[in-house]
């Protein structure tokens, strides 16, 4: 929120920061690093479009032979990717929406009204978000086996091995970061706005829903982008709190695919790229929000 995007410093700089001298050395360094950085993905793309037979004949580091998308079709069906993508969608969408909803409510309350445990609560949330997941997993796993959950939400009567359980832990875990960011955001909104709403007889809920929440749209967009990526990328909760293979979200499903894929690098490359694609698309389409989300959490507060 404090990022004054690309303010042209050269214009204000009287001294230093001159740009007349072309910086060949700097560019050479940056180009070299960028090539190194892009290489693993480029290599994955290249490997993925070559049939296994061709690379076996010509070697992996070679040019020529056939190029096609067969590996992608094979990975798509062999790994049952449509099913896993659907599972991911079932988990990510509600988790993302609800975490923003809950976080904005609590952020609104702690930033607009003071009550006794204001700071303590924020600290608890922030600390909870920083804990390594493995610190909670053992008791959580037992809780999930013991907690009852009725029919429509669960097909085995408990939280374990259910989408519900995965969504719940994502919400609980991500709440910390979102609350932290949003409460800082709300604190910068002039308090007078609140008071005006109250003067007009608006209830607390109305002040939140119709006044503050619309103002937070940029922060919510940034957080949504970030949360989509983080929840999509979750591997750990999926493999520990689900058991049925058909229920695994796509990132966790990779765990069961490693044995099958590691014998055929071309298929592995295609599969990896297919799974990486949604986050890469979101990144390229919403790069601004993505970076803003990360920096919202760091530059302020």
């Amino acid at each position: 929120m404090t990022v004054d995007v690309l303010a042209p410093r050269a214009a204000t700089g009287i001294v230093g920061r001159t740009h007349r001298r072309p910086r060949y050395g700097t560019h050479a360094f940056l180009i070299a690093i960028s090539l190194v950085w892009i290489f693993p993905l480029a290599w994955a793309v290249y490997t993925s479009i070559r049939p296994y037979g061709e690379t076996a004949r010509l070697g992996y580091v070679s040019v020529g032979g056939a190029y096609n998308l067969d590996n992608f079709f094979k990975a798509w069906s062999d790994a049952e990717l449509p099913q896993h993508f659907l599972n991911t969608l079932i988990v990510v969408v509600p988790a993302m929406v609800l975490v923003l909803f809950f976080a904005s409510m609590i952020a609104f309350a702690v930033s607009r009204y003071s009550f006794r445990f204001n700071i303590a609560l924020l600290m608890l949330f922030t600390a909870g978000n920083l804990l390594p997941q493995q610190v909670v997993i053992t008791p959580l796993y037992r809780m999930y086996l013991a907690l009852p959950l009725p029919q429509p939400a669960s097909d085995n009567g408990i939280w374990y091995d259910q989408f519900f359980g995965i969504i719940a832990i994502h919400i609980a875990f991500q709440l910390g970061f979102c609350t932290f960011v949003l409460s800082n955001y709300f604190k910068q909104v002039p308090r007078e706005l609140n008071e005006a709403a109250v003067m007009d007889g608006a209830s607390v809920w109305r002040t939140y829903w119709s006044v503050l929440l619309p103002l937070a749209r940029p922060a919510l967009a940034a957080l949504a982008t970030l949360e989509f990526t983080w929840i999509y990328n979750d591997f750990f909760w999926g493999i520990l709190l689900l058991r049925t293979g058909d229920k695994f979200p796509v990132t966790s499903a990779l765990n069961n695919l490693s044995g099958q894929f590691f014998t055929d690098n071309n298929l592995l490359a295609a599969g990896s790229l297919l799974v990486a694609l949604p986050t890469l698309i979101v990144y390229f389409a919403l790069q601004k929000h993505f970076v803003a989300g990360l920096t919202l959490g760091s530059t302020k507060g």
Partner: protein
Amino acid sequence: MADYSVPPYAPPVDSGGAFAPQPGGVAPARRRGRHFSVLTRRDRMVLALMVGVPAFIHIFLIWIPTIGSIVLSFTSWNGIGGLENIKWIGTRNYETLVNIYPPFWPAVQHNFMWLGAFLFIATPLGMLLAVILDQNIRGTRIYQSVLYMPVVLSLAIVGFIWELIYSPGQGFINNALGIAGTPDQIDWLGTKGLNLAAVLVAAGWRHVGYIMVLYLAGLKSVDNTLREAAAIDGANARQTFFQVVFPVLAPINVVVLVVTVIESLRAFDIVYIINKGLNGLELLSVLITTNLLGEASLIGFGSAIAVILLLISIGPIIFYLYRTMREMPE
């Protein structure tokens, strides 16, 4: 947790009934405008729910299990039968862990090596790139996009993508060296001692971009007149950065430090997907998982490892909270 799951409990005590009208800051001098009119009963209820429901979810699923880990670490329980089968055994789990359990010390060592590699190689590189890219370099956007790209990938996918580079028979390195398929081929991910370094390169590939973005944001918020003043005083670029800019970046440095430490302790996906965290890739996070999912299901023992992980991470967390809350507006 969805709406329909709102737990049938009252909100935690700490949020009920304690709402006071905003007093407008600590010091009376900082008061802004009029006081709120006293909230209606209904508004208080709404506020209690707005705080209580999310707080309950968070406490119930994060902090109760954290306390659970601590309690269970002093017990012996294989998860079979009810809670009544839990036996108190004092600190025996910890003694076994430290004295007998073979993968424990390697795991601790690997976690610290992970931290060291991130802290002393990946993080400074990310910072260096941010400093360079902050200088209105032509094409800075493109460089940033490329360097940042790996950050949006999960570490599981990062593991898969680097498998394409490291795999002994089909990977890029061995094929480029012409040793793939020969007796000389190097099993980068399967050789103890080598595989951790290989994994750290892959994980670092992702970490550098993350740090770079955090620093770029920090650098953009540094007041440029500071740099100009330093230049007028005759400071060179290096002096300007280390003596003027870097100290101003203190809040970012705290975030970066904590992110780096916590990421190093959380590391799990990439080693788990490569070889389930065995043979040179042991990490505390993996040991907790294998003790939970293993056939023996040693719950108390796994919890003791979790407590060790908690103890290592609690320092940076408290440090972060202390620094952040001190700078909180109001």
